[in-house]
């Protein structure tokens, strides 16, 4: 279909004797929101690394706008319109908040959003001159999301965007993403079920490197097998 942005087909990856991923499929359409959840070691971050082209799958393919992106250099993947937020807050600690966003903007082929708007968007409007290394953990996470937004992505990949955040910060992050809904596609790997529930979007559940279930979150949440393996019973 013409509105398909990212298509992962039958993706598998093996590290020596370990089959980390097997037979995974994911289709992300333009401006769609999607979550990948699963217990520790399920292969979520590995799958995200494959989706961003960082890891080359041993089987299957990953296409972005029809182009196979496996093994492409990171900067070329970014210029295609794929932005990524890493699991560990990954900002430039020696630079100010403003300079972090400027560096991100300079990497974009055609930046649109002004720096001031980006800072307001990630609630760092009053921290422009603060060194990124001096920010609180949650603020670093937001700054990194702001940096990803600065390159005007068509697809934003978030690896545990709320890790280490307070419940209030987690909900503020979900609200931020919902406000941006409709501007670009988002794939979020997340542990925090409150965050996934707030997004209430298409969800892929991984378990031991394979697809366990996929579908709308309210269906996933009530699925017996998902509750057994990951969510747990109340």
């Amino acid at each position: 279909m013409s509105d398909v942005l990212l298509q992962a087909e039958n993706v598998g990856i093996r590290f020596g004797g370990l089959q980390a991923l097997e037979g995974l499929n994911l289709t992300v359409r333009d401006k769609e929101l999607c979550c990948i959840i699963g217990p520790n070691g399920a292969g979520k971050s590995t799958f995200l690394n494959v989706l961003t082209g960082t890891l080359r799958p041993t089987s299957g393919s990953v296409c972005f706008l029809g182009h196979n992106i496996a093994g492409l250099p990171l900067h070329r993947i970014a210029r295609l319109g794929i932005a990524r937020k890493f699991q560990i807050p990954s900002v430039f600690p020696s630079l100010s908040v403003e300079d972090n966003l400027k560096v991100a903007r300079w990497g974009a082929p055609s930046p649109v959003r002004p720096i001031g708007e980006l800072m307001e968007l990630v609630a760092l409007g009053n921290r422009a001159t603060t060194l990124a290394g001096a920010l609180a953990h949650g603020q670093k996470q937001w700054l990194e999301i702001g940096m990803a937004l600065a390159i005007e992505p068509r697809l934003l990949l978030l690896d545990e965007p709320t890790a280490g955040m307070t419940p209030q910060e987690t909900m503020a992050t979900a609200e931020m993403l919902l406000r941006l809904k409709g501007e670009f596609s988002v794939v979020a790997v997340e542990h925090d079920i409150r965050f996934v529930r707030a997004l209430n979007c298409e969800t892929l559940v991984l378990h031991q490197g394979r697809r366990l279930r996929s579908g709308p979150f309210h269906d996933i949440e009530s699925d017996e097998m998902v509750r057994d393996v990951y969510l747990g019973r109340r």
Partner: protein
Amino acid sequence: MIARDRNWLVIFAVCAALAVAYPLIADGYQLTVIRDALIFGLFAASLDFFWGRTGILCFGHAAFFGIGGYIMALVTLNDAIPFGSLLGVMGAVAGAAFVAAIIGYFLFFGGIRGSYFTIVTLAMGVICQQAAVSWSSVTGGDSGLIGIPPIAFDVGGLHVDLSQDLPSYIFVAAIVALVVLALWSISRGRWGTVLTAIQDNEVRAAALGHNAPLRLLVTFILSAAIAGLAGALYVCMAGLVAPDLSGLLLSTEVIVWVAVGGRGTLLGPVLGAIVIQRAQQTISSFNPSLWPLLLGCVFVIIVFVLPDGILSIYARLKSLFRGRRQAQ
């Protein structure tokens, strides 16, 4: 303009004023001593531009200094080549840049960073020195090449001859000032900010669309080209070129000049080179064997007491007085 930039410009202006006033109080010999120290300062600034901005240490930077020197010598000593001085300088800059481009391409795009880069560049320096010794039919072997003429060229009908002490001092001081100012402008602008980002987190910078290996390569080439320029200037002023100019000892010395002056400041390494050269000459004049011991001790003390180099003394004193005032 932020305070850090303003401080840098003030220190630059003071240094420039001192450089202008120096010929009024110095004799010909003292002028040539400072002129040569300034050339080594330019060499130190070239290393600082790469090391200070990227955090990657090149331990064979003298190779580029030596390559520049030998190319300059070979071009100017060949009477068949017209405009020897100008072509020699251009050849020296281009030759050093070319070698840096070849080596840098494989290192940066091969993902070689940190101590591995340092070790490979150290080996490069050793190879260059050995090549200068072994390829005696071209380089003159151990004794090098002598009789290199001073720089002389015509600009718009004006004949510039740098065989005299004062013109050569003015020429070198102007070149050093211009290059340091240009490198500072690059460092504080977009290019320098992205380099700082790459130094902080190369993967993050690449994931934002920056071609990190290419940026590192271009910075390395520019740094090597300036080292080549310094080498070319030096051999014309000294009148000779020898394998030592591309050797490990000079590569180590330039690291000390940068570390003592203040890595990442560009001006600090120039001052570091001048101060250490002057100290070396003074101390060696009454006890030649004392110098290496003193240099080692000074280096260790500077690393512990002033890890940001001598240029940070001003900022440290400022914060000390501010702290005392607040305590009162």
